[in-house]
């Protein structure tokens, strides 16, 4: 196992957290060592024969949860974007989606009769049902961000988010569209494999024995669905940028280099007119940002063939979305876009983040959950998670906390 992992380009992708339960035992201890130095304790039919290209592809598709950390970042980002939005709109929830909405249940019902869009909110017109769905949506966002029972949470998240949006499609914008799609895709992927309470719980359980075949088959099916889902998420992001970019190429304002000027002066998108004016004041800046945006959006899909270039463009796109968040007053749109973009974050960076902050955040979150559950912690130790962590896991925690100390010191 370890040998194959070491040879694959996506090797870093399946570390101790991401590794499937069946392969967890060997992976947890030797994942960081040089490939080939550790012997796999599991019986191997042909230990010396190198896997063929097909076998490796088959293994990558059926047995490896690809990009678990990227899936986790998309999950956390989308959950925070939509959860933050629900929180922000809490005082307005009834006017937007509920009983006080100008888009009444009757009007919505007529449109839904044509579009056949899914919403549970039409099941009952009662205020109680609406409040229940809205608050379940908020709860689902929190649980999804934490990665608690991730599959169930993601399903609840998708059902509530899609239901609320479809109850009134006429108040949404591009950000809602992104959340809508990603919420559905997240149900399909194993987005709780890393950076989640689920992953933490899995690590703390004693390693499972060999899996029976029917269960292993189901596991392989779930992995395949995950891998297809990640492909769909990535392709969706590419489609977003390609569409936005290629249609801009045809626009006269993007061609003459003044396009940026207009959104900066639309009443509905200028929360800070002074800032917008300042940004659009210079001919050269306006021109560069206008042309830069088009080049970025059109070019991004093609840079996927070159890691370094892709990472530069990704950073630029995220920076542009941060700027849009502030200047155009679209924080939730921008956060949702950044979350979706995250599927292209390099694994190396995510691993660094994981080593620095992952363990720390997870421990904090775990303690919080334990406190909520009313279970007193057994030990007051510095980094030990409970009484039965074995030496290997403790070692990992040590290393993590050392790095943390160095980082803060």
């Amino acid at each position, binding site marked *: 196992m370890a040998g194959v992992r070491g040879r694959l380009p996506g090797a870093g992708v399946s570390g101790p957290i991401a590794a499937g339960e069946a392969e967890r035992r060997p992976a947890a201890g030797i994942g960081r060592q040089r490939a080939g130095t550790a012997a796999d304790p599991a019986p191997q039919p042909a230990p010396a024969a190198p896997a063929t290209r097909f076998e490796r592809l088959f293994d990558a598709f059926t047995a490896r949860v690809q990009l678990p950390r990227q899936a986790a970042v998309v999950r956390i980002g989308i959950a925070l974007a939509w959860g933050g939005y629900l929180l922000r709109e809490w005082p*307005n929830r009834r006017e937007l989606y509920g009983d006080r909405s100008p888009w009444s249940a009757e009007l919505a019902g007529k449109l839904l009769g*044509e579009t056949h869009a899914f919403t549970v909110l039409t099941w009952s017109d009662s205020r109680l049902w609406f409040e229940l769905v809205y608050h379940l949506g908020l709860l689902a966002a929190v649980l999804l961000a934490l990665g608690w029972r991730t599959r169930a949470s993601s399903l609840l998240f998708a059902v509530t988010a899609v239901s609320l949006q479809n109850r009134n499609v006429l108040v949404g914008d591009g950000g809602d569209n992104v959340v809508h799609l990603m919420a559905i895709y997240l149900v399909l992927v194993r987005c709780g494999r890393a950076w989640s309470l689920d992953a933490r719980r899995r690590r703390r359980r004693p390693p499972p024995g060999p899996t029976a075949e029917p269960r292993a088959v189901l596991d392989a099916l779930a992995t395949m669905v995950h891998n297809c889902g990640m492909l769909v998420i990535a392709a969706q992001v590419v489609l977003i940028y390609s569409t936005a970019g290629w249609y801009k190429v045809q626009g006269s*304002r993007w061609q003459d280099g003044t396009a940026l000027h207009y*959104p900066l002066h639309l009443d509905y998108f200028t*929360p800070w007119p002074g800032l917008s004016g300042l940004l659009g004041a210079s001919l050269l800046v306006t021109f560069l940002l206008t042309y830069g945006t088009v080049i970025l959006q059109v070019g991004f899909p093609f840079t996927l063939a070159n890691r370094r270039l892709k990472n530069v463009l990704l950073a630029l796109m995220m920076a542009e979305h941060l700027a849009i968040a502030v200047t155009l007053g679209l*924080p939730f749109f921008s956060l949702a876009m950044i979350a979706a973009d995250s599927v292209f974050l390099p694994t190396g960076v995510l691993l660094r983040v994981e080593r620095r902050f992952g363990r720390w955040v997870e421990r904090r979150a775990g303690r919080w959950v334990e406190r909520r559950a009313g279970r007193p912690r057994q030990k007051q130790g510095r980094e030990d998670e409970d009484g039965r962590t074995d030496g290997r896991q403790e070692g990992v925690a040590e290393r993590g906390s050392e790095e943390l100390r160095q980082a803060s010191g």
Partner: protein
Amino acid sequence: MRVWSTPALLVICLTGAALLGGTGLFLGALFLHVAPANAVSRQYQGDLDAVVYPEFEQNWKLFAPNPLQQDLTVDAQLQTIGEDGQVRTRDWLDLTAQDIAAIRGNPAPSHLDQNMLRRAVDFYRSTHPEQEGAVVGPRGALAQEYLKRIALQRFGRTAGGERVLQIRFRLGTATIAPPAWSPEQVDTGVQYQELPWWPVSEDDYRGLG
């Protein structure tokens, strides 16, 4: 790698092939949907729509091909009837100004202020053909009722203590001035489109609070 039994391998291979095929078809449909109308998308229009609508809609022409270059203003006016039976036409109320006031200086504007009225007007315009005598479809009626209720929610049930009889709108568009360095000359005055009076009944207020 795990050694599978033949039935297990068969299940995995068949499912894998179906998943890959399904994923390919799905992504192909999304691509054809966002691509310009072409021979293939025309041929399979029905199938493509079945995949994309209602849950996989793709609206990614963000500020494309050109960004919006017009500011919207929506004014509404009420006609009320007093107890003496006299009908009064009230002053125009600038509804967009309320939105803009709520957005200014707000790091996270509400969809209520940023999207509701703006998109209701877009919806109204898209469902009301400009030509004289054009027939308004069923969605047109929804758009009209929606716009009316948005305004009524802001006005409340009475105006100056009198019952509301009718409401009308005027939709204004003002072209945004080009940048200072641009040689273009545009008229930035507001162009108004006045809509007819619409009757207001108790039903229109249902649920507005």
